[in-house]
């Protein structure tokens, strides 16, 4: 946002004087031309302290400066997308760990008396139909049950602890497809 404003200022000056250089613009702003060049190319953001100083040099009104300062705190599109994926995959992992209904659906799906009926599953697992439906969709997304709602965790049948481990490994695999990596140090 501020970069566009800066670029318009530079373009206007160049229009008035075709020999007007980036160095001249940097000198006017009292900054080095490599920083300015990187900001204009979008390779880095204008440092907040410098943003204020540059705005004053360019005679930008305080109300407008406030908008640019606020915008600097908004993550760029790539960061926002990554944060959203991070939130999604850590929430998926959290749900698997904290809601035993996932395990119970898989366990029940192995039984002959299994009913592919969410109301029946809710009664069996002691949660609401909405919670069953959320867990069911998550299990389908992670490939832990198949399109017929049958256990796909492999043979021999896993117990609860092994299911949880497998489910978390599946979350990590799916997250890796979005270039999100969970590491033992807690970095993502």
């Amino acid at each position, binding site marked *: 946002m501020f970069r566009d404003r800066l670029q318009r200022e530079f373009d206007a000056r160049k229009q008035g004087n075709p020999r007007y250089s980036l160095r001249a613009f940097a000198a006017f702003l009292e900054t080095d031309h490599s920083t300015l060049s990187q900001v204009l190319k979008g390779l880095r953001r204008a440092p907040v302290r410098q943003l204020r100083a540059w705005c004053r040099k360019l005679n930008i009104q305080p109300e407008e400066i406030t908008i640019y300062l606020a915008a600097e705190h908004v993550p760029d599109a790539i960061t926002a997308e990554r944060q959203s994926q991070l939130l999604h995959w850590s929430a998926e992992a959290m749900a698997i760990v904290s809601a035993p209904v996932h395990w119970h659906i898989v366990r029940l799906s192995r039984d002959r008396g299994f009913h592919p009926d*969410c109301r*029946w599953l809710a009664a069996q697992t002691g949660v609401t139909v909405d919670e069953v439906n959320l867990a069911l969709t998550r299990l389908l*997304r992670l490939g832990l049950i198949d399109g017929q709602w049958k256990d796909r965790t492999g043979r021999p049948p896993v117990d609860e602890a092994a299911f949880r481990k497998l489910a978390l490994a599946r979350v990590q695999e799916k997250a890796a497809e979005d270039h999100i990596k969970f590491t033992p140090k807690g970095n993502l």
Partner: protein
Amino acid sequence: MNHPVMQFQIISKSPEETARFYGSLFGWRIDSDNPMGYRRIDTGSAEGIHGGIWPAPPQAPNFVQLFMAVDDVGASVAQAVELGAKVLIPATKLPEGDEMAVLHDPQGMPFAVWRRPNA
């Protein structure tokens, strides 16, 4: 076969509140007496399409997705993937005999392909 939009689905963090809101606002009949406990919306009109409400996981935003009719869910999913879509929920049989899959289109917008029971 043509591929009409068969229904809309509201994905809501608070499905019950959403049902109450739209039911009160538009007089839609919303009924969850089916094996999925799915809140089916009958708008009460012969015009337009009907819909449903599905719970959203806590990390997801509220949104609306469309269900397009297909005669072969698996084949449609394969074709969509070839065109750049990503499978979110693979082809799944539902208790009443219909089948569906949910995908992200290449721009990341979710949509579903759906085959009616005995279609």
